């Protein structure tokens, strides 16, 4: 379904997975390598047709590990790249995500979360990869994970994921879930003039003067495309600015801190969140993704009952929006953390909110979303 409305924005009715695929193309993505996995498969399916149409490449690899490897290779040639997967596939990609982190290869990984550990509930909702996104790969490295709740946000956050990946030269995750992946709702596709597309910094020096990890001009070193005359060495070993391995403790420390700083010094560009009725809130609710939509209803229903509830909805889950969580913690007498898992984001809320009252979870696994009434019950518990 396509229509043009009066602002010439295209109005569509697409499932979330198709929104991801189309947003990736709009963001300039021209390479996808993946291994289909429910509930993300429609993304790969759509891109197998759409990418060749725009001059891009689609490769179905033999498994998720290889797909992540292909993604890194394609990123090194200068393309904007992404893959889509779900929980178990995300686990398989983790080793190569570590590799992408240390060589600083921009890439986007969309995880359409499903239920259960292992094969679990492939066709049902889960939000259990909160901590996998943060700590899934080995070693210290910065992490960005975006968690949109609405399909127009899925579109804009997917574009933002590519921008952040390119701007900061790092893997960026978009975490949606089965509900959002398969849900269709009306959305307006923004005109390309309405958003900015960011490309990775590229060297301005001739090839013979190129130093691959030269951070003298900033924490994000210019990145040369492979096969353009610029020679550089990539390795998963800790390396110095030449790209060759080093075990020099001082250099290793400085380089890891520099990578961490790419995120910590750009929080204003990375962190995004939404608040609903938090100004005068006495009970706080924190929820992300599709669960946040149930939380919106719960907060409205609580207000109808005279309970001053307010919702903080992280759109950037990692790094966690600490400022607004702290502000919320200061003013409320208790917080409900609603998430479709057995309690993961709640650790982060407990850590940063500094709430004097209790922080309790509204949790559900088993593939069925948390209902607004269930969150409302928890809100009422805190009154």
């Amino acid at each position: 379904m396509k229509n043009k409305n009066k602002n010439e924005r295209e109005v569509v009715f697409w499932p979330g997975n198709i929104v991801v695929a189309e947003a990736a193309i709009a963001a300039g993505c021209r390479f996808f390598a993946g291994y289909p996995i429910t509930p993300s498969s429609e993304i790969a399916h759509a891109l197998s047709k759409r990418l060749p149409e725009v001059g891009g490449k689609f490769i179905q690899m033999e498994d998720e590990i290889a797909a992540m490897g292909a993604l890194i290779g394609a990123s090194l040639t200068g393309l904007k790249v992404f893959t889509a997967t779900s929980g178990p596939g995300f686990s398989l990609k983790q080793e190569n995500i570590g590799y992408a982190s240390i060589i600083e290869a921009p890439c986007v990984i969309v995880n359409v979360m499903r239920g259960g550990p292992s094969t679990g509930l492939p066709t049902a909702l889960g939000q259990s990869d909160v901590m996998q996104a943060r700590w899934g790969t080995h070693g210290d490295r910065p992490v960005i994970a975006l968690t949109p709740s609405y399909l127009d946000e899925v579109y804009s956050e997917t574009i933002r994921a590519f921008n952040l990946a390119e701007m900061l030269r790092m893997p960026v995750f978009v975490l949606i879930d089965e509900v959002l992946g398969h849900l269709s709702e009306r959305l307006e596709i923004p005109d390309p003039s309405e958003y900015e597309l960011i490309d990775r910094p590229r060297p301005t020096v001739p090839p013979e003067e190129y130093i691959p990890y030269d951070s003298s001009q900033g924490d994000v070193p210019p990145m040369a495309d492979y096969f353009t005359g610029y020679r550089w060495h990539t390795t998963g070993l800790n390396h110095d600015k030449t790209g060759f391995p080093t075990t020099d403790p001082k250099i290793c420390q400085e380089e890891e801190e520099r990578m961490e700083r790419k995120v910590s010094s750009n929080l204003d560009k990375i962190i995004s969140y939404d608040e609903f009725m938090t100004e005068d809130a006495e009970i706080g609710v924190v929820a992300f993704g599709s669960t946040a939509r149930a939380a919106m209803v719960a907060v409205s229903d609580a207000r109808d009952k005279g309970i001053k509830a307010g919702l903080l909805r992280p759109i950037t889950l990692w790094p966690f929006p600490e400022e607004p969580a702290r502000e919320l913690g200061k003013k409320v007498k208790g917080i409900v953390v609603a998430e479709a898992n057995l309690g993961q984001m709640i650790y982060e809320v407990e850590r940063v909110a500094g709430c004097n009252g209790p922080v309790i979870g509204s949790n559900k696994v088993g593939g069925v979303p948390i209902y607004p009434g269930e969150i409302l019950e928890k809100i009422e518990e805190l009154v």
Partner: protein
Amino acid sequence: MSDHYEARFAAVGGQGILLAGDIIAVAAITFEGLYAVDSPTYTAQVRGGPTKVDVIIDSKRIEFTRTTAIDFMLCLAQHSWDRFGFDLKDNCIVLIDPSLVHKVDEERYRVYRLPIIEITKKKMRKMVYTSAVSLGAMAGLTSFLKHESIKKALRKKAPRGTEEPNMKAFDYGFNAARELLKT
């Protein structure tokens, strides 16, 4: 809350019923200026397994996208009813094909029996029109959306070249449902 409507289409994978949900949502959005969401449910097997699609229509932006009080349900398989016959309002309109669905709760729901499969087979000679016949039947039995809106959405979503047979199939379903209401 009269501006809120929930519909469920349940069948077995391969009958093309997921498309019916899409068409209802498009009818609401494009031709009636309402908000709508649709969410299909997949089961482990795609062909032959019970499947459904839920559509929610509202005059306001829809926050919670799961059904809670279904107004209309179409069901084309007994095991789909057994699995998905929940969340229905007490007076929910339940449309079934009596050759495929034998046992539903007659006390709680307004049950209508229409030989959708037989109509499709005899009049259209191609089972791909099951969805169109079903949508026509829904339009005949319900009034939340104008039947013209559903028909227009069907035409819009029909694969190129199949618009006319789809319109015909819709009319067969619509007329059969209207006949049923007279009896």
